């Protein structure tokens, strides 16, 4: 009813904002930094989760061939493997290649003196994403039954360990994200309380000239929301910059190491962060106002 003319609402907010712009910039910066933390934690969670998903599926295996296997057997095996459903990559590493790789890396004379059968020829396999650990194991066992195959290593136990480790990482990151969330809430809350502190006179005067609680609190709540949103946007932009710097350095390495290219936060997560910023800001304002505006 009274006091709802939008121009006054705007005037009040604007007037409030103008007089404290340095304070606002500061608090938005604090918020942005807090949101960078949140975004970083989310980023770690997102990427670790992606890595875990990928690894729990992306089986690899090394097929160790018998010493006396003939080149024809090898090419037959490779051909057969290549046409097997679920296997995406087949690479033959001859005994000489293996020796070359290992002995050249070290200066150890004893190693160089080892016979050829110390370096068995192998076929390295990569499985499709859809192939899970159990299927990989089954393929390996069938391969072992072949004449030319000596043994097959599926690294299954290692994959399991790694997957568990990554799950641990996800858990830790989620907890960190929660802590950061608390930090964001506390920064917003204390900033709002302190802004309020600074505008004590303004609020007192408004109440004394007969402003309703709504009239007094609206600009503050709008401002809280705006600050929260600005902080979230700033945080996302900052972590985007950070991410692009990091990615420029590590992308290739990570992609080969981990098997997945790092990704930035999905759009939905960003939207969520901005919404959380706005809601958190508005409600922190409202909470800190409640007592001050009464009467």
């Amino acid at each position, binding site marked *: 009813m009274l006091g709802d003319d939008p*121009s*006054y609402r705007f*005037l009040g907010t604007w*007037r409030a904002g103008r007089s404290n712009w340095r304070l606002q910039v500061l608090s938005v910066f604090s918020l942005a930094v807090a949101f960078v933390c949140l975004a970083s934690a989310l980023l770690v969670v997102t990427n670790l989760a992606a890595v875990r998903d990928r690894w729990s599926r992306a089986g690899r295996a090394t097929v160790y061939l018998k010493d006396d296997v003939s080149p024809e057997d090898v090419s037959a095996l490779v051909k057969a493997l290549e046409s097997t459903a679920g296997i995406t990559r087949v690479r033959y590493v001859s005994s000489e290649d293996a020796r070359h790789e290992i002995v050249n890396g070290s200066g150890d004379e004893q190693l160089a003196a080892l016979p050829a059968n110390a370096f068995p020829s192998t076929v390295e396999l990569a499985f499709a994403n859809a192939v899970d650990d159990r299927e990989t194991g089954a393929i390996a066992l069938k391969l072992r039954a072949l004449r030319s195959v000596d043994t097959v290593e599926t690294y299954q136990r290692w994959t399991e360990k790694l997957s568990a480790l990554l799950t641990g990482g996800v858990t830790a990151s989620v907890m960190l994200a929660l802590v950061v969330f608390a930090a964001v809430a506390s920064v917003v809350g204390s900033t709002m309380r302190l802004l309020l502190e600074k505008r004590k006179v303004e609020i007192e*005067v*408004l109440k004394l*000239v*007969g*402003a309703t609680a709504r009239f007094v609190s609206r600009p503050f709540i709008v401002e809280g929301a705006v600050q929260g949103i600005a902080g979230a946007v700033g945080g996302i932009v900052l972590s985007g910059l950070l991410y692009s710097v990091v990615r420029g350095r590590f992308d290739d390495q990570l992609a080969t190491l981990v098997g997945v290219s790092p990704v930035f936060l999905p759009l939905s997560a960003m939207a969520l962060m901005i919404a959380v910023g706005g809601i958190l800001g508005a409600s922190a304002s409202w909470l800190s106002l409640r007592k001050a505006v009464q009467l």
Partner: protein
Amino acid sequence: MLTAPIRQRSGLGRRFESAAAEKPIIVCEDVSKSYQADQPVLRSLSLSIERGEFIFVTGPSGSGKSTFLRLLFRAELPDDGVIRFMGRDIVRLRDDSVPALRRNIGVVFQDFKLVPEWSAFENVAIALEVVGLPSRVIRTRVGETLEKVGLSGRGGTKAKFLSGGEQQRVSVARAIVGEPALLLADEPTGNLDPQLAIDILGLFEDLHSLGTTVLFATHDRSLLDIRDRRVVVLDDGKATDVTHGLPSFDWHEQDSGLRVAV
């Protein structure tokens, strides 16, 4: 005439007015107030103020003038007693009815209560903004009122950059811009030169002639002498009406421990 736009809009205000046609605008019955248990400021004070009166409130420093005025617009609650404004008991008013009460009352605060960061214009305009007047009306009204208090051309200056007397006049302008039913002026001329003080008193008299009830708390005896008005003296927690001829009361003879060195 000037009063119309505000009174029409503040529907709550009209409720107060129609409720009490001929009754006194303010009735205090046995009002007590103390901030510290052993030092009562007001002791079962009783006072009745008729609609349209112009009253000077005076008394020594610390006698409770400001406290009494604060009780009337519910900036403070009494420990005991009843205060009626236009027939309604404002002690038992619900919190969300307080703004409506205050919109009917203009107050000149002893410490001005201006927002230092706001301009003089904004400080005056806020009294109309809270009522929700359109900005066009606010602009003309505030401009007129600033001119009345001798501050035309200073509207854009931040309150903190105004001189003491200028700040006091901004506070006066904010109190009168809404043409309230009741005007409470707490020492509104303490920082003004004698001529300006008389001019401000004149503004209050203009308002009074339009129907506003005025309570004017002051120490300035020269103002008290100008017209033959009702004078209420607050002392020792009680209100006493003084028939004109003030020089007869000497508070300090009994209760001041000061050596008068002059």
